[in-house]
């Protein structure tokens, strides 16, 4: 079997965590398929990346040019089309991130290569590729067979292949860059940091987090009042920010904040993986949701299957009683 490629993802000079997960997945598949794993590094001043990743792959393919310093899918697509055509990997692994979703479909389509996105598991045997994906808001899994081909490309969801220890001694191979300038039609200009809000939700020991289930902006006062009672602050999942009910700096999840409070109370949050990524590090998670099959219950320690507006007032009273008893 031909080699497996894993594309190294970096931003602002730092290798992103998902890279180690791609490499871990790649090593596993390479071992099973009796082949090798190549880490593909497109970057600038890559010596540091090479040092860090040397133990993680059998080979490191390095293309060093300032054009790769910041991600630009057009630049990456042109370069990778050349490289993949020349090297014919059986499978190219890319992260299912803002970077990967911008790149993979266009790159694979240009190469005429079967691809799919957001994979949780991968089986590669006898040149056949089967993946597991999640559909319908994460409520079902689908096993999918790709059209048989000499080469495949997929994006991997983060958190599915834990980064592992590896003591390989990767051979470093530097190649000339196929691209040296950004195209006029798509130029990276800058990164803009998120605005700092009035409350830093990452600093609070207790977070009361609301999702779609809060229904109306007007009901947020009930949640704020409850959070105050238990000495916490209010965070939320994406739909609440999209609706304009809470500012972006309260959003917890992949495109918002990552929080690790002592207590996380999720109210009316179904638990899309983008949200889970941001809160799974909490010590204790209590979830309230009407749907007994909501994915949040697979992450929570304690669950209450009910309407959050029935739970919150009673719970608030209990906590107040307990406080008074203590006081």
């Amino acid at each position, binding site marked *: 079997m031909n080699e497996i490629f894993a594309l190294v993802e970096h931003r602002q000079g730092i290798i992103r965590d998902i890279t180690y997960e791609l490499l871990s997945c790649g090593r596993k598949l390479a071992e099973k398929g009796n082949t090798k794993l190549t880490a593909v590094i497109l970057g600038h001043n890559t010596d540091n990346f090479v040092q860090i990743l040397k133990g993680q792959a059998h080979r490191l393919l390095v293309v060093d040019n300032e054009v790769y310093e910041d*991600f*630009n899918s*057009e630049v990456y697509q042109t370069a990778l089309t050349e490289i993949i055509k020349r090297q014919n990997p059986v499978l190219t692994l890319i992260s299912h991130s*803002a970077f990967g*979703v911008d790149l*993979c*479909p*266009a790159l694979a389509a240009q190469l005429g290569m079967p*691809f*799919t*996105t*957001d994979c949780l598991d991968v089986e590669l045997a006898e040149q056949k590729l089967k993946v597991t994906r999640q559909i*319908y808001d*994460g409520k*079902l*899994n*689908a*096993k*999918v067979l790709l*059209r048989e081909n000499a080469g495949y490309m997929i994006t991997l969801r983060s958190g599915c292949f834990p980064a592992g220890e590896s003591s390989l001694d990767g051979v470093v191979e530097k190649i000339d860059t196929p691209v040296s300038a950004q195209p006029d*039609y*798509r130029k*990276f*200009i800058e*990164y*803009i*940091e*998120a605005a700092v809000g009035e409350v830093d939700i990452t600093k609070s020991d207790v977070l009361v987090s609301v999702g*779609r*289930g809060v229904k109306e902006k007007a009901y947020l006062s009930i949640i704020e009042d409850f959070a105050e009672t238990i000495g916490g602050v209010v965070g939320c999942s*994406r*739909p609440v*920010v*999209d609706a*304009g009910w809470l500012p972006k700096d309260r959003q917890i999840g992949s*495109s918002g*904040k990552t929080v690790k409070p002592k*207590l996380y109370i999720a109210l009316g949050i179904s638990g899309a993986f983008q949200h889970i990524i941001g809160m799974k590090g909490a*010590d*204790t998670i*209590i979830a309230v949701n009407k*749907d*007994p*099959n909501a994915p949040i*219950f*697979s*992450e*929570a*320690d*304690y*669950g*209450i*299957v009910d309407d959050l507006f029935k*739970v919150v007032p*009673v*719970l608030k009273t*209990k*906590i107040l*009683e307990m406080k008074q008893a*203590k006081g």
Partner: protein
Amino acid sequence: MDIIVCIKRVAQTAEADVKIDSSGKDIVKDRLTFDMNESDTYALEEAILLKEKFGGTLTAVSLGTVQAEDTLRIALAKGADSAIRIKAEDFEGLDGYKTAQLLKAAIKDLKFDVVFTGCIATDDYYSQVGVTLAELLGVPHATLVTKIDIQDTKAQVHRELEGGLIEHLDMTLPALFTIQTGINEPRYASLIAIRRAAKKEIKVIGASEIEPTGIQANASLEELFTPPAGKRAEILSGSMDEISAKVAGIIKEKGLI
């Protein structure tokens, strides 16, 4: 400014109980509601705002069964000038790649400056149709777009990255943008507009208009299954009073009261 927006009618599953049907390859749909895919509603709004600013035409396209025409009529009621439905019933094994190829076949002869799609469909969760379509049309793209500022043929574009970081791009039209939720406030269609849209003609194209040669899917579904329950939460039972007492006890135990 000529604009195309691709929209999809999907089962609303975020707060619904989703069950696998007897075929093992589809879901039980009779108790689900269907509506325009969430990020597509933002893509449509962005398209309407652009048309209001610059004038021109707005065409809404959807690959779906006849019910998708309801979704297209919502787009017409909100501000689209014309609508095209690609007959999903004419094509089998629709994955993201095949969908993109059919969309391309439907719009390739239309004049456009901008194509909008949503950034993800909540049913198949691909995030691949928009980018594939851009590649097939031969135009640049940007995904997860949270802001677009167009002047002449240049667009200043913001993309949403992880951790709330924004990427600012300078792009040239024509281009395709996949729109992230929250970019705008999607409007509601007025009753009068909905009534008017009910009378508008929707162009329907299918296998007799789209040459199927070379259009193939990348992926085929083998089976659906319920995700394995990892760590399961301890579900608290009893009266609301008992449940609340338990929760308060847990919080106290953690030293947080």
